[in-house]
């Protein structure tokens, strides 16, 4: 009898334990290893407390992020339940079935994409572009912008010298040409007994660096990806003479005004150069701005921020940032959706911004106090209003690497002409789209 009771108790206990396991999941969120990821760990503690689920995080440094995570998705891996994937992955991940479609979930939970900044919805969530098919919730708005040494710009002797040389004040540049003048002005200059240089720009070859940099010049000289009528029209569009001028501009900027040895620099190298006082200007994604403000050498009012300056063909900036998706291979999809529901709440988004995460929720960024909440908040808003993104096609990786090779070959290695580089790029991209059956 005693044995029977013991067995029954054990069975009931096991059932109870099983029920508990089913309701409390251990979710793994995958993202890049950078400052905002640490802020997200902090933010997610609230989700753990409220939901009873536990959160694990898998963060991979940027240069290996795409390799590692796309490998995981392509192999149907179950490491990640939630993926904050790069904006360009959306096409491939949607078409290959890596992400679950969120339309029904959004409808059931009353989450509407109208509540988010339109550029982030188009960039991070939609596939095909321009259609109301959503595969991610905008999680982190980001854009390429510029950081400058305000304290150096305010030095009276430098202001006087600059005015005399260029006939205008040393201030935030309105155009790319003005930006180059400023970079040239600072190049090789002695400040506080140290030789400084003009600008740290993206030149990295291995992943996406130089493309994320050069597009800020090319868009503003007229680059479009296809035309409105012919989305895959490349010849005469991508390699138009004015786009070649934009590429020449980027090369001139690299040749005249960057620190020696900066032939393979991306986000972290630019941050290091700026924080160590090597450069007057820094091109980088907006995510670095909270870190700049907090830095003892360049923060606390010594730095200023401005959006990518306009060019002769328009005024745009390269979109960064990511959306958060539920991985279709996950066994904990319900809990993962619960996380997205929690994350989409306005009060959580407001806290996200406070912690250093760039919320894409209109309720947060359109708050009257937002623009003055941080020294870089207005620049973030201005920049997000002019964003343009790289291809988000399923073959984006082939398109990106072709551009990396062609542009690096011209800008850094100095091989051929800008026109030849773009003609070659059109050939490469045409081959990719032909393989895909798009043209």
């Amino acid at each position: 009898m005693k044995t029977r009771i013991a067995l029954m108790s054990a069975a009931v206990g096991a059932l109870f334990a099983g029920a508990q396991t089913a309701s409390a999941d251990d979710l793994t969120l995958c993202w890049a290893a950078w400052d905002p990821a640490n802020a997200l760990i902090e933010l997610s503690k609230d989700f753990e407390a409220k939901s009873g689920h536990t959160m694990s995080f898998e963060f991979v440094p940027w240069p290996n992020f795409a390799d590692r995570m796309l490998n995981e998705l392509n192999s149907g891996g179950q490491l990640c339940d939630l993926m904050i994937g790069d904006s360009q992955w959306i096409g491939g991940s949607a078409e290959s079935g890596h992400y679950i479609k969120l339309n029904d979930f959004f409808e059931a939970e009353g989450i509407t994409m109208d509540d988010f900044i339109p550029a982030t919805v188009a960039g991070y969530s939609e596939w095909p572009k321009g259609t109301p098919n959503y595969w991610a919730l905008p999680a982190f708005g980001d854009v390429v912008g510029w950081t400058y040494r305000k304290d150096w710009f305010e030095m009276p002797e430098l202001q006087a010298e600059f005015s005399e040389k260029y006939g205008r004040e040393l201030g935030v540049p309105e155009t790319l040409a003005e930006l180059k003048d400023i970079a040239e002005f600072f190049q090789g200059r002695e400040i506080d007994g140290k030789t400084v240089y003009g600008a740290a720009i993206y030149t990295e070859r291995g992943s996406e660096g130089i493309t994320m940099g050069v597009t800020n010049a090319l868009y503003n000289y007229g680059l479009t990806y296809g035309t409105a009528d012919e989305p895959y029209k490349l010849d005469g569009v991508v390699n138009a003479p004015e786009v070649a001028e934009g590429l020449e501009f980027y090369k001139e900027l690299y040749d005249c005004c960057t620190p020696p040895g900066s032939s393979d620099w991306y986000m972290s190298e630019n941050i290091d150069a700026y924080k160590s006082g090597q450069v007057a200007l820094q091109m980088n994604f907006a995510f670095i701005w909270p870190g700049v403000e907090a830095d003892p050498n360049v923060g606390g009012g010594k730095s200023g921020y401005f959006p990518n300056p306009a060019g002769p063909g328009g005024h745009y900036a390269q979109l960064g940032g990511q959306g958060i998706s539920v991985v279709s291979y996950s066994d904990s999809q319900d809990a993962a959706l619960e996380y997205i529901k929690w994350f989409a709440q306005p009060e959580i988004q407001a806290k996200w911004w406070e912690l250093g995460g760039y919320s894409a929720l209109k309720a947060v960024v359109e708050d009257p106090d937002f623009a003055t909440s941080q020294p870089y908040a207005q620049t973030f808003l201005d920049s997000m209003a002019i964003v343009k993104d790289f291809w988000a096609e399923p073959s984006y990786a082939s398109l990106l690497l072709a551009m990396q090779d062609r542009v690096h070959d011209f800008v850094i290695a100095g091989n051929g002409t800008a026109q030849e580089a773009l003609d070659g790029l059109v050939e490469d991209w045409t081959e990719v789209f032909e393989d895909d059956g798009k043209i």
Partner: protein
Amino acid sequence: MSNSAIERAAAATPPKLARRVRGLSDRAIAWIFVAPTIFLLLAVNIFPLIWTIRLSFTNYRVNRPNAEVEWVGLRNYQRILTDEDIWQTMQATAHFLIWTIVLQVLIGFALAWLINKKFRGDNFWTTIIVLPMMLSPAVVGNFWTFLYQPQIGLFNYVVSFFSGVDPSSFSMIGEVSLAPWAIVIVDTWMWTPFVMLICLAGLRSIPTSIYEAAECDRASPWRQFWTITVPMVLPFLMLAVLFRGIENFKMFDLVVQLTGGGPGSTTELTSINLKREAFEKWRTGYASAYAIILFVTVFGLASIYVKALNKVKER
């Protein structure tokens, strides 16, 4: 003693199993022992090779599991062999391969010859010399990017000290004309000790009686070097060249850390290019054809070389 051990093992074998094994021939038992290894080889080496050959005739992409896989015949091979960029990476690989081997053999042999002279502290110096090859290539790559830094790098400083040029006026890993030499220098620094050790083994295997006989015949040191030392060390040297050749043909980590294949595509070796095709562009079929071409190249060259090596040994 051993008999009793066999008897004990026989006694311990369960009767059922003993009856079954008793009927097996020596050949069958040998197969039983060898079978797991053969199975593993088939599963790990042969099957992937056959599968890769099959994929090389398709347009398969591993990141498009839902896409239809088409048989494209020899198109992938044709594209690769007519692609100028791929020939450029082959040239970069050849440059890297030839110069690293030449420098490592010359310096490695010279060091081995010196160390073999037996002097005070020779063991200490041997240990110091072999240190670089004990490091991880990733560490070496990272470490040398700092040494090559134009503003703070020791390498540029040393060059500047001896030549008088401004250290920040040149960038070893950022300039097209210098980057191929930058990777050759680092690989030579790291792997010359390996060649030295092999040469040292060769030098120490030469019986001293041969040199004594040569001295009796009044042969000059120069003649002893060319008629005794070099021919007797040659098989060892050739072995070192084979190892370094195979290793450097598939060089990846060190160069990725140093230059990432740049500037432009100047230092993009075939293995880096292949990795980008396979795991960044996800052109699995194309990359399979590429891998097969490289495999055939290395296998063919290595076979010719091994034949030559055997001939040298027979002499």
